[in-house]
């Protein structure tokens, strides 16, 4: 399979001399769900945010389908971001807008601000949004305000918004951390199936090892800003988990 995203020698320090990421090398192929696991503060979130440059890298290369993401700015960066969908832990919806409007914000990279302001989106975008509302099971909620939804519903809207971009890769930063176990499974299921249906790779930060094992095709374990495990879920042993999270009491 062809490599879609290739990260090489990536480092990041928020403060000089205190690196959060200490040289990450990872390749992502054109399909499959990759779960990145690791304890809090180990740089998972930084890593995923560097891919679409919500965080700027200190050094290293991020090659996305032949495009070097680490150094682009302005219009080129915006055009690259349109191709990368992102799902957030706190959903990050525009609370006071309707579900439909929130979905359409996924097209803001394509529609001029003036047309967006007048809610003049191309008919195919609106049709796509209606389709996605069906997919996420919120067809009757198009006109509801985002702040009236439950956590699970909001995260579905968050996923649909990312899919509105017709992304070539889907990133998810702790998408289940604010949700109950049942909803978490449903959200992971949705991420996985949408990745498969759209033929795009999905990269998910997650701290629930069981969920990662259940849904991931590949698990990347990080600790202290480095990748210490990279392989299929069935190869992830307790020894690896001890290495990733430290200690062992929690494994009993």
């Amino acid at each position, binding site marked *: 399979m062809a490599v879609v995203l290739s990260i090489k020698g990536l480092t990041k320090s928020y403060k000089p001399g205190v690196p959060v990421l200490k040289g990450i090398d990872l390749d992502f192929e054109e399909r499959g769900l990759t779960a990145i696991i690791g304890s809090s503060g180990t740089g998972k979130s930084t890593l995923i945010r560097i891919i*679409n440059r919500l965080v700027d890298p200190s050094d290293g290369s991020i090659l996305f389908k032949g495009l070097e993401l680490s150094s682009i700015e302005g219009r080129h960066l*915006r055009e690259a*971001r349109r191709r990368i*969908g992102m799902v957030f832990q706190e959903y990050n919806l525009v609370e006071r807008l309707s579900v439909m409007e929130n979905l359409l914000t996924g097209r*803001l*990279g394509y529609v001029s*601000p003036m047309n967006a302001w007048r809610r003049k989106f191309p008919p195919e975008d609106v049709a796509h949004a209606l389709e996605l509302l069906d997919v996420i099971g919120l067809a009757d909620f198009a006109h509801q305000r985002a702040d009236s939804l439950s956590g699970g519903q909001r995260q579905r809207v968050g996923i649909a918004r990312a899919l509105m971009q017709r992304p070539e890769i889907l990133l998810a930063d702790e998408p289940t951390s604010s949700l109950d176990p049942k909803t978490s499974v449903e959200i992971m299921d949705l991420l996985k199936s949408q990745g498969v249906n759209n033929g795009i790779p999905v990269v998910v930060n997650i701290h629930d090892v069981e969920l990662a094992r259940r849904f991931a095709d590949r698990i990347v374990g990080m600790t202290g800003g480095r990748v210490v495990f990279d392989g299929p879920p069935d190869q992830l042993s307790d020894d690896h988990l001890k290495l990733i999270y430290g200690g062992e009491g929690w494994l009993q």
Partner: protein
Amino acid sequence: MSESVALAPMSKAWQRHTLRQKMARTALWLVIAIAVMLSLRSINVIWEFLWDAPEQMMDMGRRMWPPDMAYYPKTVHAALMETFHIATLGTLFSMVFALPLSILAAHNITPHKGLNLFAKTMLVSSRSVNSLVWALLFVAVFGPGPLAGAVAIAFRSIGFVGKLLGEALEEVHFGAIEALKAAGATQTSQILYGYWPAVKPAFWSIMLLRWDINIRESSVLGLVGAGGLGMVMNAAIDTFQWNRVAVILLTIFAVVVIGEVVVTFFRRRLI
């Protein structure tokens, strides 16, 4: 062993203020008392006039009674409408300038220290000058009349609206903005789709509050010749027609009460 446990609460007795804090507080009260005494001396109270005041007030009240109601339809009504227009136009005009300035002042939207400082300086200068002083300036520029009043109201309001709106913009939750950014939205789209929906209730609430204040302010601007009720009031005071002054004061009171009711009604609907 048990003795030390029994003694512990004694040594850890809780006091609200330490000795140093107590001394500082006493000193502060002393300073306030001295300041009040000094300022009383400097304002040169003429005690005879002060003792006389209740009598003078009664006298003025008697001269005002009964209010000259017939004067209302003749002159006061037109002046009242002018006051409304000054307040409303001034508020709308201030909005046009306050919007861009508030965006420039909000450091999360405009991450440029120089521009922030520029906008904040503009907003502070607008607020540091009283409406009456702005009116004096614009009467000198445009001549006496409601235009000077409306522009004065606008210039005073820019600082108020701009500052509050700028602060509302700075408090917008970053998450939604980050999501729009991640979708490749331009800065303009981020403002229109991320910031605007979040500050919209605050914005209308600020505008209504300022309109309410402006109604009150524009009713006195006429004292310096900038149109509206104040001009009529000034004329009545100058000619000692206290019955007319009474009508004008009653009108202002009624307008402020009605303004309050209207603003409260709309604010409840907006938020």
